[in-house]
């Protein structure tokens, strides 16, 4: 494995420190099945998912974050009526929980895609 060791990246006109590129990329992403039986397709930096019940899944990371103040985004793959949330008290450097709610507010199974930006340990 070779390493490109540069301080800045430029297109010839604009230059940015390499840290902006490295730190600005997603450090985790995945897409789960609707019943949390596994991952669909590609994943990044996940070690496992844990199906904790209807509409509740915990994702664990292989390379942990430096702190639990990372930035999470997520989407429910449904045409309407559901949202995905992530309770703040479940955030840790090694895992986080996602919950899918239906339009009545109850936990409900659904395919979700999630990603996280943040600094790794």
């Amino acid at each position, binding site marked *: 494995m070779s390493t490109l060791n540069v301080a800045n990246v430029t297109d010839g006109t604009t230059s940015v420190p390499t840290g902006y590129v490295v730190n600005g990329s997603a450090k985790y992403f995945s897409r789960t099945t609707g019943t949390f039986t596994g991952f669909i397709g590609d994943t990044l930096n996940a*070690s496992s998912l*844990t*199906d*904790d019940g209807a509409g509740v899944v915990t994702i664990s990371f292989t390379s942990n974050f430096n702190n639990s103040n990372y930035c999470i985004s997520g989407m429910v793959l449904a045409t309407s009526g559901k949202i995905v949330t992530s309770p703040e008290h479940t955030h840790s450097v090694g895992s986080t929980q996602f919950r899918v709610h239906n339009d009545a507010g109850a936990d409900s199974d659904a395919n979700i895609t999630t990603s996280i930006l943040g600094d790794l*340990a």
Partner: protein
Amino acid sequence: MIAHLWDRLADAKARLDPVQSKYRVLFENPTEPEAPASVLVPDPNFMAAALAGDVLPPIDTYIRDQSVPDGQPKEHPYAEPVGAMTEEEAIEYLVMKDISPSIWRDYNGNRTIMKIVPVELIPSDRSFRNAWKINQAEQEITA
């Protein structure tokens, strides 16, 4: 110099085919007796890295890092990677990494609160998902 775990994972992902495990880990949290049983599913890229070797750090580095406060330097990213594991060893590694020690190490009760089972034993009918418990007599779970 040892490359950061993140770099080793990126390299492994580029050269290894994902591996779907034939195992799942069922567990219950003894501090939440009303909660349903949980089902841990390994990530295919993680399994590929574990089976290939020279990617993942020793499991004890993850365990020691659990007591390191947020923002402080962690041991596991730059620890010397371990060699290739069997699938069974990889599942045990994952249990120790992703499940609380209060379940796999510290629990002293009589109830079976964790089982490693073939994926076929996980029910596909989720009608009563929030009532799943580990069957104490059989190698399966019941609703």
